[in-house]
């Protein structure tokens, strides 16, 4: 205790000398702790990314196959197509409708893999609903009509009573609602039981409901594709109303429309019935236990399920795009940390060598008047610890303020690359609308909202964590012990008689 007091007294009595050492240590420690904070942040963010990205995949018709079919269709003349359409048998018509769909047998089989945690099936189809006006579609059609009059291309066969129906096995896991682009404002979602029992229920958009004066409990009549008359009609009960949170309106002249509002959500089995494609889905959607399982599942798909028309699309690329810059920043900060700690070690070693060298006579006197080696060492240990403690407290304060900037600076180059890759990864950067078929490279988990092609910039959130405080203490001990090495060696080897004889 007395040695500690003596050490602290000596620390206070050499302010200028200590200030120089503290300043040097402070600079290096600030850099070390900032680098450490960036490293911890990047590691934790990569871990967070792993929980939400990279562990998703879906089985759907491949883009190559879709392109191939389109090319074949394009090579046919209009009269050939009409003739073919007239002479089709019921089986051929089903085959025509399901050529861009996947058999449920395949998606179900894949869901049995041990790595699969959750599984959903999705079907998106355009269905006609009697006595329901799609004002958004009307607006779009009138815009297209004007384009045709001014020399534009004729529109595809769309009508104002045509709606996009999206079905899955459980309403609460619909991706649009999961990502937050849509929000249920009234009623409830359909359940898994609704899917199993094919209960004819539906969720519609708020504006659509208001325009057509509909509310929860009302009924709509939808027509089964390819059928007519009463037998081809299905009454759907409205059980929920949603609003489009991230509605993006496309403005053309005086007219506006919200294309995200024409989607009706119903149990998958109901949509399959309406689209007349029983046993077929647009895709199977899977979440895995970890992004590490993707390779294994890809192999399973390639070996056991792929017939050349299907693909297993994952968000692995998105994971790499996000995690790579973070990983690089982590590595760079680790190098910075090692360098700065090395500099700290060098500073404390040199400083203590200079300090002890200048106080050799004092050491000799202490030993001559009966101080034990332990007493002298304890005194110097306190001096070293005081120097390091002041430096590290200051460094912690300053690094808390500058770590974020350091992180941003380290991330800046990689972010630019990542943003470019993300944009390229989304195709041509053009706005993507809806859940419009196999041509769409968007994954189901991302929802069907608009994308302007530019992604939110990658950010590193350097939060000062409790673990950093513990690392700070560890660094303090490391530097303190290193600083102590010099006096320990000096003191144990010192011969007071030699020192005291020096004039």
């Amino acid at each position, binding site marked *: 205790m*007395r040695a500690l007091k*003596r050490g602290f007294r*000596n620390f206070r*009595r*050499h302010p200028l000398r200590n200030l120089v050492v503290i300043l040097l240590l402070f600079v290096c420690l600030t850099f070390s702790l900032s680098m450490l904070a960036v490293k911890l942040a990047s590691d934790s963010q990569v871990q967070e990314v792993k929980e939400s990205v990279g562990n998703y995949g879906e089985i759907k018709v491949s883009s190559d196959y879709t392109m191939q079919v389109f090319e074949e269709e394009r090579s046919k003349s209009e009269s050939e197509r009409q003739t073919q359409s007239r002479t089709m048998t019921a089986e051929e018509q089903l085959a025509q409708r399901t050529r861009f769909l996947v058999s449920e047998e395949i998606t179900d089989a894949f869901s049995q893999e041990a790595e699969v945690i959750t599984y959903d099936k999705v079907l998106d189809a355009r269905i006609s609903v009697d006595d329901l006006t799609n004002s958004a579609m009307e607006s779009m059609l009138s815009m297209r009509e004007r384009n045709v009059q001014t020399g534009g291309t004729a529109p595809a066969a769309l009508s104002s009573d045509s709606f996009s129906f999206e079905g899955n096995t459980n309403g609460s896991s619909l991706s649009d609602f999961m990502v937050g682009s849509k929000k249920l404002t009234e009623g409830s979602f359909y359940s898994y039981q609704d899917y199993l029992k094919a209960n004819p229920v539906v969720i519609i958009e708020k504006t659509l409901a208001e325009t057509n004066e509909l509310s929860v409990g009302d009924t709509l009549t939808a027509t089964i594709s390819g059928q007519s008359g009463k037998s081809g009609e299905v009454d759907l009960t409205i059980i929920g109303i949603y609003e489009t949170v991230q509605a993006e309106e496309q403005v053309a002249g005086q007219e506006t429309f919200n294309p995200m509002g024409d989607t009706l959500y119903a149990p998958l089995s109901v949509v399959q019935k309406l689209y007349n494609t029983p046993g077929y889905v647009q895709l199977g959607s899977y979440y895995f236990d970890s992004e590490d399982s993707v390779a294994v599942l890809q192999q399973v798909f390639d070996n056991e399920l792929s017939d050349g028309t299907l693909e297993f699309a994952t968000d692995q690329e998105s994971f790499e795009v996000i995690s790579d810059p973070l990983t690089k920043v982590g590595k760079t900060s680790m190098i910075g940390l090692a360098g700065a700690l090395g500099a700290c070690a060098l500073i404390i070693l040199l400083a203590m060598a200079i300090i002890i060298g200048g106080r050799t*006579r*004092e050491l*000799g*006197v*202490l*030993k*001559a*008047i*009966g*101080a*034990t080696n332990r*007493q002298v060492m304890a005194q110097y240990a306190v001096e070293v610890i005081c120097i390091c403690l002041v430096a590290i407290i200051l460094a912690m304060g300053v690094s808390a303020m500058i770590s974020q900037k350091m992180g941003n600076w380290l991330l800046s180059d990689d972010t630019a690359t990542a943003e470019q890759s993300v944009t390229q990864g989304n195709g041509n950067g053009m706005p993507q609308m809806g859940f419009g078929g196999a041509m769409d490279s968007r994954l189901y988990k991302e929802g069907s909202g608009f994308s302007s092609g530019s992604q939110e910039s990658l950010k590193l959130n350097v939060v000062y964590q409790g673990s950093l405080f513990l690392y700070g203490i560890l660094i303090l001990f490391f530097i303190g012990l290193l600083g102590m090495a010099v006096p320990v060696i000096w003191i144990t080897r010192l*011969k*007071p*008689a030699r020192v*005291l*004889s020096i*004039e």
Partner: protein
Amino acid sequence: MQDVLEVRDINKTFKAKAGNVTAVDKVSLRARRGEVTVIVGPSGSGKTTLLYIIGSLESPDSGEINVFGEDVARSETDLISYRRQRIGFVFQFFNLIPALTGLENVMLPMDLCSVPASAQNDRAVQLLERMGIDGRLQKARVNKMSGGEKQRVAIARALANDPDIILADEPTGNLDSATGKLVVDILVELAREDGKCVIIVTHDESILAVADWAYHMQDGRLKGIETGS
């Protein structure tokens, strides 16, 4: 008078580039309580080495040192205890700790022996006052003091743990003659009044006048001389 210190056949040889140098050659010596023993000799004669051997700062190659009839052991713990309880050093260059005040320098040996802080302070003040260092000067840093003041602080420090033996190495070597005389008088007073065993090594032969026992050291050998006192 009781024998405090008995040195028998001490040898010490140092290795040098030019060969071995015998600093202390079969030296024997006795010193008693209440007496001043002075060893004179030119520089390099081995007197400081002898003093350091007596003070256990240097270990002899051979020979024996007895204090109150007991051999000074050579284990580190015993040597530290010996230095603390039996020996008080006074050096030519004072060897005070410059960052400390006079008072703190005197308190330091007691602090190392875990004497309570208040007792340390009382004794240090008492010793410094006896040495003529007043209250203001006691709290001044020693690097602000004159040579005589420093040496008196050094003597007070040597007395801090009330040792039996005071070893003074050229105590007047760095002082003017008047201050030197004052310091020597203090050392003599410590022997006469406090019953300390004072051993002074010096090249200043005028100090021989106060010696009860005087020796001349030349080339590591010690020879008794008449002091006339």
